[in-house]
């Protein structure tokens, strides 16, 4: 009797008829649309800092048919440097060659829609439509990706990885694990955070192996006999797959180097979450909700996963997506385990519809965006509202002498817009090293005299932000002459 009732309840949760299905698809399409467009209404992707050096590096790779191994475009060309995002840079440069600056917002939209779709699928998708939609909305609100950046792609891949691993645990279908190394080939070329993916995979494998050994706790597909071979193959395959790039094992070296970097102390995006905006609190609620549900439906792997992701994301706000995606996966898994499992075996056609909806929305957005954003001059003027375009034009037209001293926030832009002047600093903190970065920050904050910074001392042209304390310091130097000034930047040259 109770089985019949449960089954009937499960049936009730499925929408009946074409009308309900159409309503769901329409709602999903609206969500993807809003998720894609909302962050790009004011073309924010064109006003962000990092994207420009990715573009410049991508163009360099296209031109030279190789990846850089030293500090290209900077005043430190002999410093070793590994471009961990070379795949992303290549994609950006290729798109730029086709669509110009319009490719930036389009790529940002594409990443957001794909991420929304991946999270929706991870959260059980059409099988539990409302829960999945709510979780995907929450996740989207907490991500805050403002520019087309490798981390967005990494988040998509992370969501897919978790979806695969959880599905494997439920079904025990070893063929699912075949996709994992392929995922890592792509991930390692896009972003250094592939290390997180490897850690998650190792965690799943360890729990799977322990459960197979002791045959206790959760009985699921992944703890069947023989699963250990699949786990070991997936782990080894994935670790090797991460080396399938022009950098080979150096990709791992770069990943480890970035983890040991002192930049966590002084780069804003590497600081902890500040709990000053709504999405920070939303993230906290999502995580606590996941822990609450775990209390009801205990799962060792979920607890371990969440406990590992939580400190990483809270300590490094750039990586907030890690715990958000893990929380979504854990909540979806807890709800799936807590209710009738029949729901999980809903017809695959439903999920396909969701993916088609995402693809359709993406196509419409990209197509209409490409049409609307075809005016390159208008896009460049948007860029000029944030970056020193006119000041850089002045430098170029007046043939002002190198080397240049520039602001940190503008270094990335200048690598693209003013390639004839190698920059003194930009947002590639791993290239410059802690000493150079900290000296620059001390100058910027007025703690030491500007002359103490070697790049300031040897510079012949200075490009600084209008109204900044550094501008004050520059104006106070008797041996500097201001040659250009607008509401964004001031340019000065050495007169000695």
């Amino acid at each position: 009797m109770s089985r019949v009732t449960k089954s009937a309840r499960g049936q009730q949760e499925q929408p009946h008829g074409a009308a309900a299905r159409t309503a769901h698809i329409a709602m999903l399409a609206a969500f993807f649309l809003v998720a894609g467009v909302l962050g790009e209404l004011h073309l924010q992707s064109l006003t962000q800092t990092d994207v420009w050096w990715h573009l410049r590096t991508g163009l360099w790779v296209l031109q030279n048919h190789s990846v850089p191994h030293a500090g290209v475009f900077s005043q430190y060309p002999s410093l070793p440097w590994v471009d961990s995002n070379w795949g992303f840079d290549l994609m950006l440069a290729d798109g730029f060659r086709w669509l110009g600056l319009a490719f930036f917002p389009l790529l940002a939209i594409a990443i957001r829609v794909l991420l929304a779709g991946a999270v929706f699928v991870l959260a059980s998708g059409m099988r539990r439509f409302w829960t999945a939609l709510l979780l995907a909305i929450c996740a989207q609100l907490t991500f805050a990706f403002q520019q087309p950046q490798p981390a967005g792609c990494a988040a998509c891949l992370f969501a897919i990885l978790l979806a695969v691993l959880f599905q494997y645990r439920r079904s025990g279908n070893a063929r699912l694990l075949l996709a994992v190394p392929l995922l890592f080939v792509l991930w390692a070329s896009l972003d250094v955070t592939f290390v997180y993916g490897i850690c998650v995979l190792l965690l799943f494998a360890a729990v799977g192996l322990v459960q197979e050994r002791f045959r206790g706790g959760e009985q699921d597909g992944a703890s069947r006999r023989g699963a250990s071979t699949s786990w070991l193959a997936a782990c080894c395959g994935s670790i090797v797959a991460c080396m399938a790039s022009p950098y080979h094992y150096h990709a791992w070296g770069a990943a480890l180097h970035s983890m040991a970097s002192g930049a966590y102390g002084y780069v804003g995006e590497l600081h902890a979450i500040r709990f000053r905006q709504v999405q920070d609190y939303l993230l906290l609620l999502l995580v606590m909700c996941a822990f609450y549900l775990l209390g009801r439906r205990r799962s060792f792997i979920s607890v371990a996963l969440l406990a590992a992701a939580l400190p990483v994301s809270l300590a490094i706000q750039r990586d907030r997506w890690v715990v958000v995606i893990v929380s979504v996966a854990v909540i979806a898994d807890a709800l799936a385990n807590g209710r009738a499992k029949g729901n999980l075996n809903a017809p695959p056609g439903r999920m396909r519809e969701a993916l088609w909806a995402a693809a359709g929305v993406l196509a419409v957005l990209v197509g209409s965006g490409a049409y609307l954003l075809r005016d390159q001059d208008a896009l460049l003027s948007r860029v000029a509202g944030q970056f020193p375009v006119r000041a850089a034009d002045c430098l170029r037209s007046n043939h002002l002498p190198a080397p240049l001293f520039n602001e940190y926030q503008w270094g990335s832009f200048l690598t693209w817009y003013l390639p004839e002047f190698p920059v003194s600093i930009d947002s590639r903190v791993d290239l410059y090293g802690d000493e150079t970065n900290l000296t620059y920050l001390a100058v910027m904050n007025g703690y030491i005299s500007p002359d103490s910074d070697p790049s300031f001392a040897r510079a012949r042209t200075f490009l600084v932000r209008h109204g900044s304390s550094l501008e004050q310091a520059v104006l106070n130097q008797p041996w500097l002459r201001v040659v250009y000034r607008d509401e964004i930047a001031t340019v000065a040259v050495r007169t000695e």
Partner: protein
Amino acid sequence: MTMVKELRGVLRLPLLQFLVLLLLIAILAGIACSQKQCVLDPDIWWHLRVGDWILQHHAVPHNGILSRTGSDRPWIAYSWGYEVLLAGAQAATGLVGVAVFGLVLVLAVAFTLFEALRRVSGRFWLSCGLATTGCYAFLFNIMPRPVFFSIILFTAVLALILKAERSGRAQPLYWLPVIFLLWANLHIQFVYGLFLVGLLVAANLLQRLATSAGIAQHRLAALQLPFSRLFFVFAACVVATCIGPYGPTLYKVIYGYAAASFTYRVIHELQPLDFRSLRHFVQLFLTAAAFYTLGSSKKMDLFRPLLLTAAGLVAFRTMRDSWFIVIPAVLCIAESLRCESADVEGRSFLRTAGLAVASGFVVLLLALNLDFNARGLTRTISGQYPVRAVEFIRSARLDGPLYNTLDWGGFLIWYLPEHPVAIDGRNDLYGDRLDFQFYQIQMGVSPHEADDILRGSRLVLLQREAPLASELNADPHFQLVYRDEIAVVFARR
């Protein structure tokens, strides 16, 4: 099996438990005595001077006393009770009295938390572990100040609420108005406790509504406490907070603090957790563990999840409020692991008195060995505050008005009372605008020549490393008259 039984027997030995408690107290006291945070807090000094002022005038202030820029602004000493106690301690035994007062507050917080945990869980060792973990997470994030009274009273209020819910009797809650009467005269964060009681009432009402509407009946725990009594207690608590020299004006200050924004950007203790210290992760995992244990209970009530959620949202915002999530979290964990058979009320007076005497003896030994005396405290203060610079100003008879930085304002109120300060840590007195103005000038972001307050000053006392100090060095209107490794003094030419 026999060995386990024997071990359990040993762990239940009162003497062993007594010694462990004594050890924990000794560790806490050792940390407090060696760090000497009780005399390093920049705000403690203005509290001390305000306490003196109250004792001297037999009245509480209503405007910005001891300040030259805020003297005509309205201000109330909302921690007047604490300030009077602190001033009394100083009057009795000087600087050592101030330090001992802080030390006693630290130990009182830890012991209250332990006792609350023991009463909630009925387990000694669990209470020891949770109290130690909880204290580690929040106790040394902040320095001993009026907020410690808030922590103690918050713990007591929550323990009474949990006891009332457990027993199904509202009698323990009748103590709450008395607690709030005391609390509102000691510290402004009584509002956190009031929120706690308000949440209990709201959760009770919501749960009743949900039950009557047939929502999640199989999951919700049965309600024990009658709504009318809870509401009566809450109303009595609100009335009790208005009994004091300032009456309901306290709520105006609360509104002012809630609306402040600048202080949350620059004051260190109001910054969020930076997750570069182990204690921040401990706070995080205690919160997570509390949610996990709530989820694992068979029946749920609305009060605990709502409390943890609200407390989490507040506590992760600023380091100062870490205690606001840690205490409910450890109490929720302790409650979920409660031993029903334990006799939790049975601590005899003699045993408590014995512990107090033994602790006093241990603390005395530690204090003697850790330089926790007038000489050691003075040395510690001199390492952080401009003691020698002030002595120079006094000996050279330099004229004011004085210009100082926010960090040292509180200390100067106490140590240089003849010169009213330009600014100090009373953010409610100066407001966002003035605080921001001072910050901009100090950091060299705004040109100092345009600042009215600095222009009207004849004497400037700054941190040696402050960007403003470099600017004044190059300013012909000012002359550097004193410099040491901490401070610089400029006099207007």
